[in-house]
């Protein structure tokens, strides 16, 4: 009976998610409506938000093939809208390296005051970023890093290793508080060949080690609902009793949760990754095995726009002592649980 209730809760959560998907289903245009659930970044202290010199900020990112990238573009736009002194110049998003290079070139030619670039591939766009820097345009490198430090002014991005650490600490503390010895800890990765996946797994293992725990079983999926479902179905058979499960990606997590419900299992705690709206609603319901998710938040795009504005206006970050914006900013992976989920709901992205 309890698993039935859990399923209902899940589906109610799903309903909310589906309603928010409405624009995606009824129109064929990328959901660019900034009105819907746009995160409201915190106001800066120290008067940095006062209108200053007018600046033009160019923006280039890959096409949205995943909810996360879609949220990046949306967040960048809504952050720019908050400032009357920003003229936001996005270029057509593309997954083609060649096209992204020409798009950035066109922004250089247009003499924008700052560039925010999330490259399709840091290596391959390094050259054009270098050109921009040489032309005197500060480049704010978003997430996927350019190998050449001369190519960018500031890098801001997420912490994959830190995601693993956050998940490991959550699971470690929970299991310690329950006095579980020799726990069965299962990990479902994304695409195993990606460096980001390996970083996440390493962080997870390292954090668990501080509690004297280790990963019992690890399998990789493909960041898709279907593969998450397949892998979880067999993993649940392999381990009759699990104490904790970390799934790297909330989108594939939809499939993992479906497999868990199908198998009527609820003896363990599950932690997600990325911070999608679906996952947050699931955590909020309280009836799900999903107890937490660790963020890799697309809000970094909003922050990148803010940084671009400060750099272009020659301002520093007012909470810091330095006169200039730092060279590198790594976001902390935050742990969302039932206790703080309210605060994050507005930042959740539709997977």
């Amino acid at each position, binding site marked *: 009976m309890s698993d039935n209730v859990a*399923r209902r809760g899940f589906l109610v959560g799903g309903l909310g998610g589906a309603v928010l998907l409405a624009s995606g289903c009824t129109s064929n245009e990328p959901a660019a409506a900034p009105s819907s659930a746009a995160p409201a970044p915190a106001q800066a202290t120290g008067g940095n938000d006062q209108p200053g010199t007018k600046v033009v900020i160019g923006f280039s990112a890959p096409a949205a*093939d995943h*909810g996360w990238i879609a949220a990046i573009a949306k967040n960048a736009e809504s952050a720019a809208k908050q400032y009357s002194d920003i003229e936001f110049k996005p270029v057509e998003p593309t997954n083609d390296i060649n096209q992204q290079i020409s798009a950035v070139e066109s922004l250089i030619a247009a003499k924008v005051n700052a560039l925010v670039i999330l490259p399709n591939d840091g290596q391959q766009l390094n050259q054009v970023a270098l050109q921009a820097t040489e032309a005197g345009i500060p480049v704010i490198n978003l997430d996927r890093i350019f190998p050449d430090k001369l190519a960018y002014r500031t890098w801001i991005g997420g912490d994959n290793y830190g995601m693993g650490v956050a998940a490991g600490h959550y699971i470690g503390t929970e299991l310690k508080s329950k006095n579980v010895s020799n726990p069965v800890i299962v990990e479902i990765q994304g695409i195993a060949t990606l460096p980001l996946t390996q970083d996440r797994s390493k962080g997870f293992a390292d954090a668990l080690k501080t509690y004297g725990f280790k990963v019992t079983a690890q399998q990789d999926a493909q960041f898709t*609902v279907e593969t998450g479902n397949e892998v979880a179905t067999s993993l649940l*058979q*392999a381990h009759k009793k699990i104490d904790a499960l970390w799934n790297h990606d909330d*989108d594939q997590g*939809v499939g993992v949760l*479906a497999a868990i419900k*199908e198998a009527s299992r609820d003896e363990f705690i599950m932690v997600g990754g990325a911070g999608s709206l679906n996952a947050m609603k699931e955590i909020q319901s309280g009836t799900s095995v999903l107890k937490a998710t660790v963020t890799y938040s697309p809000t970094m795009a909003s922050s990148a726009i803010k940084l671009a504005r400060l750099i272009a206006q020659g301002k520093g970050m007012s909470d810091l002592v330095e006169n200039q914006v730092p060279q590198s900013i790594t976001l902390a992976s935050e742990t969302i649980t039932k206790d703080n989920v309210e605060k994050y709901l507005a930042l959740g992205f539709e997977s």
Partner: protein
Amino acid sequence: MSEPTTDRPPGKTAALSLPSIRGVGEMRHLGLFGALALLVVVGLITRPDNFATASNLVSILSLAATIGVITVGATFVIIGGGIDLSVGAVMALASVWATTLATQSYGPVVMAICAILVGTGAGLVNGILIAYGRLVPFIATLAMLVAARGLAQRMSDRKTQLIQSDNAALVDLSTTRVAGIPLLVYVFALVVVLGWVLLNRTTFGRRTYAVGGNPEAARLAGIDVRRHTMLLYALSGLCCGIAAILIMARTTTGSSTHGDLYELDAIAAVIIGGTLLTGGRGTIMGSILGLLIFTLITNLFILNGLNTSDQLIAKGLIIVVAVLLQRRNLKERAP
């Protein structure tokens, strides 16, 4: 197309000689059963406590169900001398179309019908292009693969579409169990039985063998080869539509990422099952056994905590070994 070298009798006699073809198939199944038995033994030895449990068997069948339904359709197409590369993409498109908010507002029955219509429609387009447009099946269905995947991404805006709580009846296919087995496994079994009857006990089935074995002879024997070819692809599309319903039930979603590389899994299962890629020979049972071998390998690897790279190597080896064995079988049986 020209047939002077063929040793198969044309037209009606092809139909009459069917029992012997089936006989060959059943002999070949012995090898498949052997391989399956071997895997079961490996499972019993390596994970005695987890492998032979009822719930693991149910898991294996549930995992096999979606692609199994597609494999039934693929078997028809390949016996008929064609190939369908678009199956995974068509299934994804059907799942997305059936889970748009517009479709969901009509309830689970309409969603299921929608998936079936989209699948059959896409298959029909394949069939018309191949039979009447004279496109090579490989090219026509490759085009459909790319286009259907693209359309699915467009419709879903590349997002995962959840099934709403009003339509939970669809998810019940996966969660409701009768005699301990989820409903979707019964759907799978029903499709296999119907496929078997259609292939072995009807004129449609006999014509499929005839068209695949020797289209020119089939035409001379009075079979409308083009129409039949078109219907084969529509049938494959229908199976994709049914598979879309099952994947929606299992994952509670429709998504443009569903069914990635299913075409390769389905073709591999059909080949392992002893169906000739050149058409004219093959059995449903063989394909299903081939698929179960693949599913069992994945299950065994995960039960033993081995990674996907090793699974891929094992699957590649099995395909090669299966085809080599079949070739030897065929030679031995040659007059």
